[in-house]
């Protein structure tokens, strides 16, 4: 299944760095996010977009992960040539990530 089935997401921007939250709809799926939505997978998913490192932060109390992606916004929001200079649409691309279904969802 797609990540979209168990999580929602929002993108934010600062300079040339983008951050994407991945938030479990149901906190029972948070371990699934922890196990499968790794920084390495996110970096690979955004091939051609993220040029820098991806760092993952874990927020267990709200069942969310926060990915901080360096060198992602075309040199910075204020000078980027990109149509979506802020990278606001990136969250939707991340929700397309393939996730192995948990036992209670199959």
């Amino acid at each position, binding site marked *: 299944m797609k990540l*979209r089935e168990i999580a*929602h*997401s*929002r993108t*934010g*921007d*600062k*300079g*040339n*760095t983008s*951050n994407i*939250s991945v*938030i479990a*709809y149901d906190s029972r799926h948070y371990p699934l996010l922890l196990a499968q939505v790794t920084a390495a997978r996110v970096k690979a*998913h*955004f*091939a*051609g*977009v993220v040029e820098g490192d991806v760092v993952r*932060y874990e*927020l267990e*109390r*709200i069942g*969310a992960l*926060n990915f*901080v992606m360096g060198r992602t916004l*075309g*040199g*910075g*929001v*204020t*000078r980027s*040539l*990109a*149509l*979506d200079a802020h990278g*606001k*649409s*990136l969250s939707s*691309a991340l929700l397309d990530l393939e996730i192995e279904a948990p036992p209670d969802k199959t």
Partner: protein
Amino acid sequence: MRTIRIGSGAGYSGDRIEPAVELAEQGDIDYLVFECLGERTVALAQQARMENPDLGYDPLLEERMRAVLPLCAAKGIKIVTNMGAANPEAAAKKTAEIARALGLSSLKIAAVIGDDVLEACKQGDLPILEFEGSIKGLGNRLISGNAYLGAEPMAQALSAGADVVITGRASDPALFLAPMIHAFGWTMDDWNLLGKGTVAGHLLECAGQITGGYFADPSYKDVAGLARLGFPIGEVGEDGSLVVTKVAGSGGAVTARTCKEQLLYEVHDPVRYLQPDVVADFSQVQIEEIAPDRVRVTGGGGTERTDTLKVSVGYLDSFIGEGQISYAGPGALARGRLALDIVRERLKLTGVAASELRFDLIGVDSLHGPQVSAHACEPYEVRVRVTGRTESLREAIRIGNEVETLYTNGPAGGGGAWKSAREVVAVASVLLPRELAKPQVRFVEAGR
């Protein structure tokens, strides 16, 4: 326990105005905050001020103030805003003029100045954080340097009786923290309370983004009434407790989900959310729905502030030229790709001097590039988009021209060509020792 109600009346400079009026009319609020200053807006405003010393503040200041001042004056609602942009004093004078015209001569309006630290940045020749180089390296391309001020001068203005506080560059959460410091007498070294207040400010600062805006995803996350979206109200207690809500009957929704998305919006390390007044800690925040459109937020914290202030430096970066044209029907994608190939070759043949070029097909790969979009199915229509960075306006114009000439020289059926060329004012950051910024409060009486 004492509680104040703070309404968030704008999440960016061009935001809707009626939701702020709704908050003033029906929100039973004590404070109305307008966050209207984007990253590069101060640099653009500084250019406007150089043209005319009476300008350089938010272009919508007059419209917003006319819309809310009578209601706020009648109900004793204090206004805090960064609509001063590059010229808070001129904004305060303009607001006083509007107040007088509306018969509200008793209003006290305060400007917070001192965020303009361009000279201090030049003298220190501070290094740029985003790329190799320093302030001096920007030479005469440098336009502005504005420090993100904290809440203290705004809180002082409120404590001195201001009805309206107008700042230039200040941290966005600080606009909300100032009323809390003023109302509850929080001290400027109570890191825990300042951290909790920062969580509240951060959640409220983008207005509609916590009441269902920037959230809806039909059949996954449905939100009713986005055309009449209500803006948020924060009920903040003197112990830093927070309930987020909105005006009953307004559009949108305040839910645990909308609050969680906004909590992490533009946040990097949640343990260290750097602010001028505190290093806020979002990592232990808990979010709980206690009633429809009422969400309780607990667990925020903070640690001691750093010795520096972040400064936004505006500079003339480059010029960007752009052209677009559309293709549709069977074969649209192939014709779009052919069009891009033609423009790519033309830019080389004619020697357009661009340091960076980008070739997109809108509807195919313009947002996330060819690799992420590789598996998408073929669309009915595509829009060709070519952009490039140049050193002069003249060169930038040539890029759009090469797209436009596809009309008569390119693939079949190209329509809706459009072009533009513009100068780019970009923003970079430096860190300034905090004692070098000297904020001051200046009052303007509406009656004079």
